């Protein structure tokens, strides 16, 4: 039979619990609350599961934080990569600007040293350099460009104007198959004609050099002025190869001073050509 609620037994138990606890508490209060043996036993018994909870919690928390950190690192990586690309692009642009400024400075120096009026022009179309030998520049008739104006760059002769538009002009490079320029060996003054070629564009043939002419590898080749297009004394290239050739002529090859595959700006020269009185009188 179930004891009635609030039965004598439970009341006695409650009384006993209250009295014993009051005694226990007052005992502890008198002893200053020192840790008892009972406390140590209970504490020792419940310590392992509490440690387990703590370990699980810390493990989960650390894993979560690691995950968050990893995500942050990934996001930061994406951000930094984007930033790096931007900075690289900016750096390339700056480098390009510096190089351009340097080239223009050299070109300006050159134009100051030349005894001609010059027009600086920028290549706008290369028609497939290095395969093509005609380039388009961004200066034309409106800017004072005229036919047959020689074009040079800081390293040497580039070519001549063969076609003019109002704001653009076509320049035939000296490596063009149909190009020809009167040249001479700067050291020995031996003359010849430098022709363009379709074969090896790093080496152009210098025609009509007498077999007795003094030409050696490394000699500087400059314009002779005899073609009435290029003024005298402009550097064209250096002798790269010399051989005896057939009969009365030597076989000479010249490496152009200009790097046509790196051409970006040119100077167009206003050359005052002398009137061809001799030709007229012959007529």
């Amino acid at each position, binding site marked *: 039979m179930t004891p009635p609620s609030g039965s004598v037994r439970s009341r006695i138990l409650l009384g006993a619990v209250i009295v014993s606890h009051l005694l*226990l*508490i007052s005992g502890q209060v008198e002893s200053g609350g020192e840790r008892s043996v009972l406390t140590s036993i209970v504490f020792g018994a419940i310590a392992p599961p509490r440690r387990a909870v703590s370990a699980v919690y810390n493990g989960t928390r650390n894993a979560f934080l690691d995950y968050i950190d990893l995500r942050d690192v990934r996001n930061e990586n994406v951000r930094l990569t984007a930033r790096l690309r931007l900075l690289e692009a900016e750096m390339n642009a700056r480098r390009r600007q510096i190089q351009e400024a340097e080239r223009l400075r050299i070109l300006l120096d050159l134009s100051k040293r030349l005894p001609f009026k010059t027009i600086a022009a920028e290549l706008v179309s290369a028609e497939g350099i290095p395969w093509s030998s005609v380039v388009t520049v961004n200066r034309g008739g409106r800017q004072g460009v005229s036919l047959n104006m020689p074009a040079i760059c800081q390293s040497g002769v580039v070519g001549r104007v063969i076609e003019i538009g109002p704001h653009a002009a076509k320049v035939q490079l000296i490596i063009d198959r149909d190009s020809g320029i009167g040249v001479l060996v700067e050291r020995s003054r031996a003359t010849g004609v430098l022709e363009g070629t379709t074969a090896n564009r790093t080496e152009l043939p210098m025609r009509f050099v007498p077999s007795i002419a003094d030409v050696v590898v490394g000699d500087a080749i400059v314009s002779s002025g005899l073609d009435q297009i290029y003024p005298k004394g402009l550097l064209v290239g250096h002798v790269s190869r010399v051989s005896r050739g057939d009969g009365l002529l030597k076989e000479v090859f010249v490496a152009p001073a200009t790097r046509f595959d790196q051409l970006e700006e040119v100077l167009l020269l206003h050359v005052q050509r002398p009137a061809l009185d001799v030709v007229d009188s012959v007529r």
Partner: protein
Amino acid sequence: MKVAFPAFAILVALLIQDGLTLVLPAHARFLDPFLLITIHFALTRGETTGMLIGIAAGWVQDVSFGARILGLIALSRAIIAYGVGVLAHRLLITGALGRAIVVFLATLLDAWIYERLAGMFDLRINVLSFTDTLIRGLVNALVGVTAYQLIERLAQRRVRR
């Protein structure tokens, strides 16, 4: 079995309280799983069993959460368990609302008894503000009623099998 289940329940309460202290240290005080266990046993097994389990849970709580004077919580829980057990037997409190009210009032009474006991022995304790005590009562009532229903459903399922 009679001892194993209450012991397991106290262990679960300890783990919940520890977990809450670690995860939500600022809000852990608003839930008292030991009190919920005490009330549950007082409601379902009467005041005597409730009292004994309340004392055990109180002791574990006292020891595990660093009380310098042991027995205050245990004594408070014994009184609460007795009261709830007697009340449950007389009023047949089985509905969710009735249980929620009992848990809520028991939480307030427990806080009040604990403070009075501490005052009796001139002990310094951390007292919850009245608002915090009310919140604790509401949280206990909500969590307690949900947990009690869950436990009863599980028990019914076991009986059916």
